[in-house]
C-alpha cells in the first residue's frame, strides 16, 4: 500500500494555519443563505417523496408511472439520507437553532437509528479516520481492504460480501453498532464506551426498524390496497436504489486505491495539523456536476467533509479548490478524480485484498 512520507513539523504547522484560514473564511459567510438552502432542500425532498408515492400508485394507468414514482421516491430517500440527514446529523445546521433541523433531533428515512449512527460515525469514524482497529467504518468489519488485516480464507468471497453489503446497506448502518457491542452474538466487549445502556441500544434498534418496516412495507401498501403489491415492490426498489447509491458513494470516499490507513501509534498526541493531514490522506474526492454533489450529500468532497465535518456542505466545492491548492503548496497528496475512475479503483481494491498479497507476506515475515 502507498506509504506516505510524513511532512516535517514546520510544514504541518503552516499547513494547519492554511486549513484553519479556509475554515474561518467560510464560516464568516455561513448564514441566511445556508438556512434558506437547507429549508428549500427539505421542501423539495418532501414534495418528491410524496409525489413519488403518489405516482407509484398510478402505475395501474401505465407502468411508466410506477417507474417514475419509484425513481422519485428513491431520489427523495437519497436526498433525505445524504444532503439533508447526513449533514444535519453532523451538526452543520445546529447554529440555526431550529428544533427540527438539528443534530440532536433529526431522524432520517433509513433503517439505522440516527442516534446510533451519530455515535459510531460522527465520533469514531471522524475522529479516528482510517485508523485500523479504531475506525469501525473501515471495511465495516466485513471486508479486508488493506494488508493491515491478516488474510483469511473467507476473504476470497469478499466481492460477494461487498455486493450484499451494498444491496442491504441501510441494514448495515442499522446493525453496525449493535454488532460492535455484541448485543445479540458473541462475548460482551470488555471495554465499551457506549454512553447508553445496552437495553436502550437494543430498544432503539428495534424501534427504528419497526417504524421503517411498518411505513414502507405495511402502511403505504395497505393504504393503497388494490395495488398492494405494486406499492410494496415500489418501496423495496426505492430503498434498493438508495442503498446502492449511498454505499457506492461512501466506498468511493475512503477505499479508493490511494486512500491510506494509519496505526494507533501514529496518531497518539497528534496536532491539529497532523489530524488534518490524516483526514486528507484517508479520503478521496469525486468530481462531477453540481447535481451530482448534491445527490452525494457533498460526500463527493469527502476530503473537505473530513476536514470540516460541521461546516454546511454546500460550501465544500468552493473550499475544495482552496484545499487542493494548499496541499499542492505543502507537497501533500490530494486524491480526486472522476466518479467512474474512482469507483473502479474501489472495486480493484476489494478484489486485490481478497487474496493474500506477496507484500503482505513480506510484512508479516
Amino acid at each position, binding site marked *: 500500500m502507498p506509504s506516505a512520507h510524513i511532512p516535517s513539523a514546520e510544514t504541518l504547522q503552516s499547513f494547519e494555519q492554511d486549513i484553519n484560514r479556509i475554515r*474561518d473564511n467560510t*464560516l464568516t459567510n*455561513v*448564514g*441566511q*443563505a*445556508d*438556512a*434558506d438552502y437547507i*429549508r428549500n432542500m*427539505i*421542501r423539495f425532498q*418532501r*414534495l418528491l417523496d410524496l409525489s413519488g408515492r403518489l405516482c407509484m400508485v398510478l402505475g395501474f394507468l401505465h407502468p411508466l408511472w410506477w417507474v417514475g414514482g419509484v425513481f422519485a421516491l428513491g431520489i427523495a430517500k437519497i436526498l433525505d439520507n445524504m444532503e439533508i440527514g447526513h449533514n444535519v446529523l*453532523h*451538526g452543520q445546521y*445546529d*447554529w*440555526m*437553532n*431550529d*428544533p*427540527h433541523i*438539528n*443534530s*440532536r433531533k433529526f*431522524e*432520517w*428515512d433509513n433503517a439505522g437509528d440516527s442516534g446510533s449512527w*451519530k*455515535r459510531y460515525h*460522527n*465520533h*469514531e469514524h*471522524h*475522529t479516528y479516520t482510517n485508523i485500523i482497529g479504531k475506525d469501525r467504518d473501515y471495511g465495516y468489519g466485513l471486508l479486508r481492504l488493506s494488508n493491515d488485516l491478516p488474510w483469511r480464507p473467507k476473504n476470497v468471497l469478499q466481492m460477494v460480501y461487498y455486493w450484499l453489503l451494498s444491496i442491504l446497506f441501510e441494514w448495515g448502518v442499522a446493525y453496525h453498532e449493535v454488532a460492535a457491542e455484541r448485543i445479540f452474538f458473541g462475548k460482551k466487549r470488555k471495554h465499551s464506551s457506549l*454512553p*447508553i*445502556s445496552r437495553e*436502550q441500544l437494543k430498544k432503539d434498534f428495534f424501534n427504528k426498524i*419497526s*417504524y*421503517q418496516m*411498518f*411505513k414502507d412495507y405495511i*402502511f403505504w401498501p395497505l393504504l393503497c390496497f388494490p395495488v398492494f403489491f405494486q406499492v410494496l415492490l415500489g418501496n423495496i426498489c426505492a430503498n434498493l436504489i438508495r442503498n446502492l447509491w449511498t454505499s457506492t458513494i461512501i466506498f468511493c470516499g475512503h477505499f479508493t486505491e490511494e486512500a491510506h490507513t494509519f496505526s494507533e501509534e501514529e496518531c497518539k498526541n497528534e496536532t491539529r495539523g497532523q489530524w488534518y493531514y490524516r483526514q486528507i490522506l484517508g479520503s478521496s474526492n469525486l468530481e462531477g456536476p453540481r447535481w451530482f454533489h448534491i445527490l452525494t450529500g457533498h460526500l463527493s468532497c469527502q476530503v473537505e467533509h473530513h476536514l470540516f*465535518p*460541521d461546516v454546511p456542505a454546500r460550501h465544500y466545492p468552493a473550499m475544495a479548490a482552496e484545499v487542493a491548492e494548499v496541499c499542492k503548496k505543502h507537497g501533500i497528496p490530494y486524491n480526486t478524480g472522476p466518479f467512474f475512475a474512482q469507483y473502479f479503483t474501489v472495486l480493484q481494491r476489494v478484489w486485490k485484498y481478497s487474496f493474500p498479497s506477496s507484500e503482505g507476506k513480506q510484512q508479516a515475515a
Partner: protein
Amino acid sequence: MTTTTTDRPAPSRTLWQRLARSLTQHDSFGAYFEPLIQLALPMWSTSGYRTKVLEVRTELPDVYSLVLKPGRGWGGFRAGQFVQIVAEQNGVLCSRHFSISSSPDHYARTGLIELTIRVQDKGRITPWLRQQFANGGWLRISAAQGDFVLPQGNGPVLLLAGGSGITPFRSMLNQLRAQNDNRDVQLLYFARDNQHFLFRDEFNRLQLDNPQLNITLLDNEQHGLISAELLQQYCPDFARRQILICGPAPMIALSRNILTDMQVPQQNIGFEYFGAAPIDQPRSSSDAALVAFRQSGINVDIAAGESARSLLEVAENAGLKPVSGCRVGVCHQCICQKQSGVVYNTRTGQYSDTGAGEIQLCISVAASDLVLDL
C-alpha cells in the same frame, strides 16, 4: 460532591405520534410539513404562534415598543406575564423573553399586544429587532408565561420598578383602570435620570382617574438608589402591603435586602428578573462564573474567561455524565442546551449570544454565569 444522574425515560408516545414517527420520522405531522407550510405562512411553526409585527413605536431614544398581532389560537395573558419571541436573524432563530407592557383589556378590544424593549448596549438582538421590523414583518411568540401578577383580592399593593422593569406594571395599571378597580396602589418607579422615565403622560392620566393610585418617579441622579429612607418617605405603610418588584438583578437584590431588614415577610414579596435570573450563591472571586446545571440542581463556581476549563470537564468534575465523543469539537455529541449566559467557543474564537441556544460542551468555556440543561 455526590450526584446521581438518571437516564431520562423516553416520553411514551401516543398511537398518533407513533404513526407520525413511523411515516415522517417526526413526532408530529405538523413538524414534517412545517417547511412546506412556511412557504405560505412565514414563521409558522408547530411550537409557538406566528405573529405579525404592525409597528415599532419609539418611546425614548433607546426604548421602543413592538406592536404585535398574535396569530390565531394564542391564548391571551394576564397582566404582568411575559412571552418568548422568536425571530430569524441571518438564518438563526433567536429567542428573547419580554414582558407584555399593554393590558389584557387592550388585547380583548384590539387583538394587539405591546412589548416595550430597551436597546441593550452591544446587544445582538434588541437593536436589530428595531431595524428589522421597522416596516413590519413576522415573528413567533410563545404562550404567555409567568406568575408575576397582581395578588388576588383588593388589598393595598406596593410596586417597585427599576428601569425597563416598569413594563409589566404598565400592563397591570391599565388593566385595573379598564376594570374600574380602584384598589390602593403605590408605584415607586426608579430610573437612571429624569430623561429615562417611560409612559409619563399615560401614568399622569391614570393617576387622575384613580385617586387611590399613587405614582412616584425617583431618578437615581437626584435620589440615589432605592433605600430604606426612600421607602419610609414615599410609602410609609409599605409593611401592610403586598409588594411586587421588577427591574435589573442588582436592584431586586437590594430591594429584597432592604425589605427583609425591615421585617417584611417573604411571602409578601414577589419579584421578577429582567434577563437571566442571577444564580444565588456566593462565589470565590468577582470574576468567577457560576454554572448552574439545572436538571441535576448542581451549581459550580469556576474561573471564567477564555483560558478556563471546558464545560465538559466542569460537568464531569461535578460528577455529571454528559454524552461526549471526540472532545475536540468535531462530532457534536456533546451538544447541550444552554438556557442563558455567554460562552466562549475555543474552536471558533467566538462568543455566544446571551439567550437560549445549543452549545458544544467540549469546546465551550464560561464567559459569564450560565444555566445549562444538564
